[in-house]
């Protein structure tokens, strides 16, 4: 936060500098440059002006000198004297010409001579020249016959700039008869060169002679250095140029100068006007210095202002930032001075108002959150929410108690990993798809499914799952409401089982009614039929046959009587109270065999009774009925072989006391194993019997909570079994063991409920 703030004020300052100082600097530079240009131009103009004036002065001087020449040559007296001298060279003529020339010398010339066209001095104001002759070469003399020409400038012994001028001397017919030679100092040039007007402290006018090899020889005494020659191509070029202009160059001293140069052809003379660049541009430099100081000062003030301003903005911002940081305190904004009218104050007020609203919203959210927690924590349903991938996002306490998984164990895991269905594929993806398809219209019943789920500890729980979905931004989330319905499902299953049992019972009863009615009717049919036969016999007076018919009618009546008795007995089995007691099986079987000794002997059957049989918990009378019926059944149907044997015994298996009657008779086909236990069902109509005995066994065993069955293979005898359960709560095999001196085989805790305990 501190860093950001610093950076902000830095930025602010930099922005100020960029916005304030850089343009200023640029402007200063521009102005400096502009002023330099302006001043440079001005100086150049000045130099050009001076150069022009000086050149004009030189031009004027040369013209003046020409005029002087013409004045001299136009003296008729001199002309006629020279013509005269040509025809007759006399001293007289020479002396007269010298006199004339001396008069003319007053014009300022050092010496004036008259020459012949071949350059021989005829008469001169300086007699020495008459002997020396003219220094002019032939080319110059040749040119001088046509016009006034100047020889080279030179400095004489007195360091004056002098020049030799030659001009034609014409007769009356304008024929060249001779030449005039004037040597004159050019004092004006010295004054031109010495005139520094307008050239400041470092400026000067130089007169130069252009040497054939391109060097410049300075003619006039220089202001700073005498007798200089040098080479300066740019000046040379400037002199030869058409237009007079100023250039920047290096002078003979090596100084950078601004200079203008021109050339006077008459005198073969260059004029250079120059001034030191430093001096010329010194006003601009002074201006530049001022500008730099201005910029520095302005920069300092801009930085100062920037710092002050940025401070004034960042300080409230910092306060606001701290207030926002401390927002958790709720009233952090109240301590701020938000009365200021500038933008930061406005921002602060806006933030404060927003904070107020946020605090309100937060309180609402906290209330909502508390309510949500209350609902989730106290819901009777397990509430589980999953994201679009089917991964658990929420797992309420009831889900923990329902399935045994803690929330932290479930979060992020696949729903199918923590809610494992009892069998088959995990149904959750299908359910979520169904929810998606159903949409989330409120008021519609949620899609519901029922599943049996394995808890963490492996036990099963029946649940009803309702699911709904909601869109959270682009994601779909699902919420499952899971209700435990184990009890209901158990009840439902029990009900279903009972219903099935009831239905089976009903069908059995229906079958029973049918069977009973049929079997009761059978003797009646016999009676009716034989009564009809009797009637016929009576009509036919066939008395012999009548006796048989009457016997049959009587037997049928007896049979019906017995059937009804049996039915009554069997129906009573469930209604008369039974009194359980521990019965010693061996004792019971011995009594049975004693009672049935006659029948056993008649059937020629050997009955063996096993030793070490378990006790049974049963009603003594009814148990006896069971065993009597089993013995009777075995005698009737099983004792048919060569050496019929009936084996009787008992074992303790699965908490039941099981007893068997095994014969070595013809056996019973598997498809009849159930049928024979039903009322009035007989496999053999030849052997007398009512078909009630085994039905009674079944009934009594049912009443005792036990069961009866047969094991048999056709042709290999039959073993009829009955199993009596132990009484509930009796789990002391030891007692059993002590009583019988043998270990119980496969003894288990009995689960069969006791029935009919009075």
């Amino acid at each position, binding site marked *: 936060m501190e860093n950001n703030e610093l950076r902000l004020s830095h930025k602010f300052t930099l922005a100020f500098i960029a916005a304030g100082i850089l343009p200023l600097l640029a402007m200063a530079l521009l102005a400096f440059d502009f002023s330099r240009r302006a001043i440079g131009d001005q100086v150049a103009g000045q130099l050009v002006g001076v150069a022009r004036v000086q050149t004009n002065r030189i031009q004027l001087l040369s013209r003046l000198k020409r005029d002087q020449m013409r004045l001299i040559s136009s003296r008729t007296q001199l002309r006629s004297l020279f013509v005269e001298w040509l025809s007759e060279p006399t001293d007289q003529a020479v002396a007269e010409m010298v006199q004339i020339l001396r008069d003319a010398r007053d014009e300022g010339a050092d010496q004036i001579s008259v020459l012949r066209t071949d350059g021989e001095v005829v008469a001169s104001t300086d007699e020495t020249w008459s002997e020396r002759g003219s220094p002019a070469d032939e080319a110059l003399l040749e040119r001088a016959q046509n016009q006034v020409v100047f020889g080279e400038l030179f400095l004489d012994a007195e360091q004056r700039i002098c020049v030799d001028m030659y001009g034609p001397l014409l007769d009356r017919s304008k024929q060249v008869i001779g030449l005039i030679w004037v040597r004159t100092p050019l004092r004006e040039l010295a004054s031109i060169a010495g005139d520094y007007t307008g050239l400041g402290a470092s400026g000067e006018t130089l007169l130069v002679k252009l040497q054939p090899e391109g060097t410049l020889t300075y003619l006039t005494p220089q202001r700073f250095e005498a007798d200089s020659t040098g080479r300066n191509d740019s000046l040379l070029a400037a002199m030869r140029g058409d237009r007079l202009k100023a250039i920047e160059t290096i002078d003979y001293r090596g100084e950078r100068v601004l200079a203008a140069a021109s050339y006077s052809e008459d005198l073969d003379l260059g004029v250079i006007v120059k001034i030191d660049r430093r001096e010329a541009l010194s006003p601009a430099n002074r201006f530049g210095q001022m500008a730099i100081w201005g910029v520095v000062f302005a920069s300092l003030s801009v930085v100062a202002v920037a710092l002050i301003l940025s401070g004034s903005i960042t300080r409230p911002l910092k306060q606001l930032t701290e207030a926002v940081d401390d927002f958790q305190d709720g009233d952090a904004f109240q301590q701020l001075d938000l009365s200021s009218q500038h933008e930061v104050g406005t921002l602060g007020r806006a933030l404060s108002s927003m904070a107020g609203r946020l605090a309100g919203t937060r309180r609402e959210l906290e209330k909502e959150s508390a309510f949500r927690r209350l609902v989730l924590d106290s819901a009777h349903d397990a509430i589980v929410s999953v994201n679009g991938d089917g991964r658990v996002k929420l797992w309420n306490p009831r889900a923990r108690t329902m399935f045994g998984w803690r929330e932290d164990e479930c979060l992020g895991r696949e729903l199918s990993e923590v809610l494992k269905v009892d069998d088959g594929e995990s149904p959750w993806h299908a359910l979520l798809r169904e929810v998606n398809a159903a949409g989330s219209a409120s008021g519609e019943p949620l899609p519901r499914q029922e599943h049996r789920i394995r808890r963490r500890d492996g036990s099963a729980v029946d649940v009803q799952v309702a699911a709904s979905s909601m869109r959270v931004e682009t994601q779909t989330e699902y919420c499952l409401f899971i209700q435990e319905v184990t009890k209901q499902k158990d009840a439902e299953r029990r009900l279903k089982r009972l219903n099935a049992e009831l239905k089976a019972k009903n069908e059995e009863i229906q079958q029973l009614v*049918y069977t009973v*009615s*049929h079997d009761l*009717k*059978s003797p*009646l*049919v*016999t009676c*009716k*039929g*034989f009564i*009809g*036969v009797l009637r*016929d016999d009576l009509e036919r007076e066939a008395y012999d046959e009548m006796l048989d018919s009457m016997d*049959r009618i009587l*037997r*049928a009546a007896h049979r019906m009587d017995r059937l009804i008795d049996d039915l009554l007995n069997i129906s009573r089995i469930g209604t008369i109270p039974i009194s359980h007691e521990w019965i010693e099986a061996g004792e019971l079987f011995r009594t049975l065999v004693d009672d049935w000794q006659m029948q056993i002997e008649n059937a020629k059957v050997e009955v063996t009774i096993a030793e070490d049989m378990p006790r049974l918990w049963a009603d003594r009378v009814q148990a006896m009925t069971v065993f009597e019926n089993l013995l009777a059944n075995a005698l009737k149907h099983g004792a048919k072989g060569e050496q019929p044997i009936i084996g009787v015994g008992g074992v303790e298996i699965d908490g039941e006391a099981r007893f068997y009657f095994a014969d070595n008779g013809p056996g019973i086909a598997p498809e*009849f194993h159930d049928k024979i236990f039903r009322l009035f*069902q*007989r*496999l*053999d*109509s*030849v052997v007398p019997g009512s078909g009630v005995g085994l039905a009674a066994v079944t009934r009594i065993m049912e009443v005792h909570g036990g069961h009866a069955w047969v094991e048999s293979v056709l042709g290999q005898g039959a073993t009829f079994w009955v199993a009596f359960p132990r009484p509930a709560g009796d789990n002391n095999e030891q007692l059993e063991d002590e009583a019988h001196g043998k270990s119980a085989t496969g003894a288990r805790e009995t689960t069969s409920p006791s029935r009919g305990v009075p």
Partner: protein
Amino acid sequence: MNSPPVSVLVVEDDEDHAVLIEKQLSRIAVVGDIQRVVNGDDAISLFSQTQYKPDLILLDLNLPRYSGYEVLAALRAEEATSRTPVVVVTSSPNDDHAERAKQYNVMDVVVKPATGERIAEILHELRSTRPEQEEWS
């Protein structure tokens, strides 16, 4: 009538009922041979093991081991007895029997005890409608 006597098989487990039927049959002139078996197994083995082919079967519904319907189904499945006329005899009259018996193409369902006249009627009907009548005459 010059027709040959009618042979009848009685399938009846009840001794008295069998005797009764036999008595009534024996008093009808057209009846010739009368055989009796006490259950379905015996009836089927009779057909499968001998050349015996009765003109009519009187079948009791309430039989030990296999019921009358099971016997009927077995008879109809056998080539020899697939078209043998069968009259179902039962002591419990109800519509179910008639309906179920029809599926096996039985001539009639008679309620016990059948009178001699009723049996005579059936035999007469059998002789007059039976397609194989020609064979006999």
